[in-house]
């Protein structure tokens, strides 16, 4: 796929030392809980930013982290943004406008020279929309230099229908359930070559990604992914923060402890880099699964949910910390769905008691690489009637013909490695891959 390269430092670096806390001015209050190394970011399943508010909702199985966002070139014009959803299923940093408006972040232009707007679609029909802006981001002790992020507009206008697609705009904390999304998935950019004019296969920009806007509306636009896309322009696409670190930039490890059923809150770590420090090595029992079209294979109850690497048709299966349950098709009907709304448990499974199940995952590019994954599903109505936030046995149905979505319950009690496409990794298998 992509040529490998080792990322060196900083787009437009302005002498900003790695880690806001080394020399210079320390921005207000970098949280230190659980974060003892520069490449370790504390993460928590704590119910989300609304959990403790009057009338607020608990976000079940949402895992969150804090980032320090600075105006490019400043070490004092900064804010800490807490409760960013740690999402291995997406790429790039997206933050509610209300969280960063005080910084006055500069606009990033699209390839045509006009201000770039980004659209992010989620499969449940929600979306976020807003301008691409340049920010200097610090996560634990790692700094990105100046990178494009998406600011989620609080008062958007002219959202094109190719972005909204009839869905729900998650541009408030109460709708999104978070202050933003920290996408740390498999790819270095949220779009990549298809959105870069140097590498796109068409002279027409694809719709659903980047736009530029005028009084008459917003139309699809190209945006550069820089050197990796053979584009001499600076990077304009929303970028995976980790690839912009000077070190520890080839992937992440999500480390969450086991949860026996449910827990009030759970804390863990997002470790940066794979095989680059003593704290991010692969172990002798870690299995590496490469992906095809960013999916891999799962078989369950005798059915295959596999990706065809040639046609990219599936349905493929995937690992995703941004999904808050295990979502899969149950052909044997051993798991009854919960009663329909208005309960919070609608769209989950409601067996009468704990069900122990087993699936097999497989590398789609090497059929001999397989692993049995045991999991359990319990009654979601019972689980969600508590005030807990973490649930290892929360699962839900999808219809026949949909792939297996290994959401956050998969992560409890595992170290899950996510190796970023195009980065150098210490394995025979080239990135992108998942390992656990």
């Amino acid at each position, binding site marked *: 796929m992509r040529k490998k390269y080792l990322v060196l430092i900083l787009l437009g670096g302005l002498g900003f030392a790695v880690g806001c806390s080394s020399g210079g001015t320390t921005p207000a209050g970098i949280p230190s809980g659980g974060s003892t190394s520069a490449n370790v970011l504390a993460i928590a399943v704590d119910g*989300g930013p609304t959990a403790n508010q009057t009338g607020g909702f608990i*976000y*079940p199985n*949402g895992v969150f982290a804090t980032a320090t966002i600075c105006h490019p070139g400043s070490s004092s014009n900064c804010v800490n943004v807490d409760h960013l959803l740690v999402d291995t*299923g*997406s*790429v790039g940093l997206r933050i509610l406008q209300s969280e960063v408006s005080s910084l006055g972040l500069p606009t990033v232009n699209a390839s045509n020279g006009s201000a770039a707007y980004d659209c992010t*679609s*989620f*499969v*449940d*029909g*929600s979306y976020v929309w807003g301008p691409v802006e340049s920010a200097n981001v610090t996560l634990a002790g790692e700094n990105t230099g100046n990178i494009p992020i998406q600011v989620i507009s609080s008062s958007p206008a002219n959202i094109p*229908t190719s972005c909204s*697609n*009839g*869905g*729900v705009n998650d541009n408030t904390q109460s*709708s999104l*359930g978070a202050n933003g999304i920290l996408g740390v*998935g498999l*790819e270095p950019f*949220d*779009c*990549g070559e*298809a*959105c870069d004019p140097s590498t*796109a*296969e*068409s002279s027409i*920009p*694809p*719709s*659903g*990604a980047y736009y530029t806007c005028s009084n008459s509306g917003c139309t699809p636009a190209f945006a550069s992914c820089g050197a990796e896309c053979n584009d001499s322009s600076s990077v304009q696409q929303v970028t995976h923060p980790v690839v912009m670190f000077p070190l520890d930039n080839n992937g992440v490890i999500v480390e969450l402890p086991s949860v026996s059923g449910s827990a009030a809150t759970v804390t863990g770590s997002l470790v940066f880099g794979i095989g680059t420090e003593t704290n991010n090595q692969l172990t002798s029992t870690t299995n590496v699964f490469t992906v095809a*079209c*960013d999916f891999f294979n799962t078989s369950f109850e005798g059915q295959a949910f596999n990706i065809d690497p040639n046609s*990219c*048709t*599936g*349905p*493929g299966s*995937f690992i*995703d910390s*941004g*999904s*808050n*349950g295990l979502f899969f098709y149950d052909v044997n009907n051993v798991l009854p769905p919960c009663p329909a*709304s208005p309960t*919070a448990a*609608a769209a989950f499974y409601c067996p009468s008691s704990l069900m122990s199940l087993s699936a097999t995952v497989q590398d789609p590019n090497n059929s001999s690489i397989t692993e049995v994954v045991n999991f359990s599903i319990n009654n979601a109505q019972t689980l969600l009637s508590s005030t807990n936030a973490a649930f290892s046995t929360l699962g*839900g149905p*999808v*219809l*026949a*013909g*949909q*792939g297996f*979505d290994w*959401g956050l319950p998969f992560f409890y009690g595992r170290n899950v490695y996510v190796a970023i496409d195009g980065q150098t990794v210490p394995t025979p298998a080239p990135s992108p891959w998942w390992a656990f």
Partner: protein
Amino acid sequence: MKLFFRRSISFTAFMTLGIVWAGLSSPALAALGGDVASVAADQAHMKANVEVKQAGGYEVHALRAPGGTVVSEYVSPSGRVFAVAWHGPFFPEMQQILGSYFQQYSAALQERKPYGHRPLNLEQPGLVVQSGGHMRAYYGRAYIPEMLPQGLKVEEIK
């Protein structure tokens, strides 16, 4: 026989498209539930390359948009689109491919419960929409259950 069928579809589509554009103030929306001419409208809107395949009793028109997303439109022998499927790095334009079913789909999306992202499973009378995957890797299908040909499994719509 096959070649003749395909040529006559193109001719019909071209003529119908001309009539439709002349008669409406906005481009004709397609395609689920629409006739095969609406597939041509989709192709024009998406600026897509199209490939037509014959399968057991129905045709599959695969439209590949510039960004790489493929939308497959399943056409019955009577010329109606009974299913659409998509896969690729970009979310398809749902208003275009769902046509008159878009309002029903959009209304169902507003019922989303907080919080948490998960695959979409919309199963309503007369319309099923599934949407899964993640950023840069989307897939899904929408179909009219009562119009599915005998023996066609849902999993084959992709």
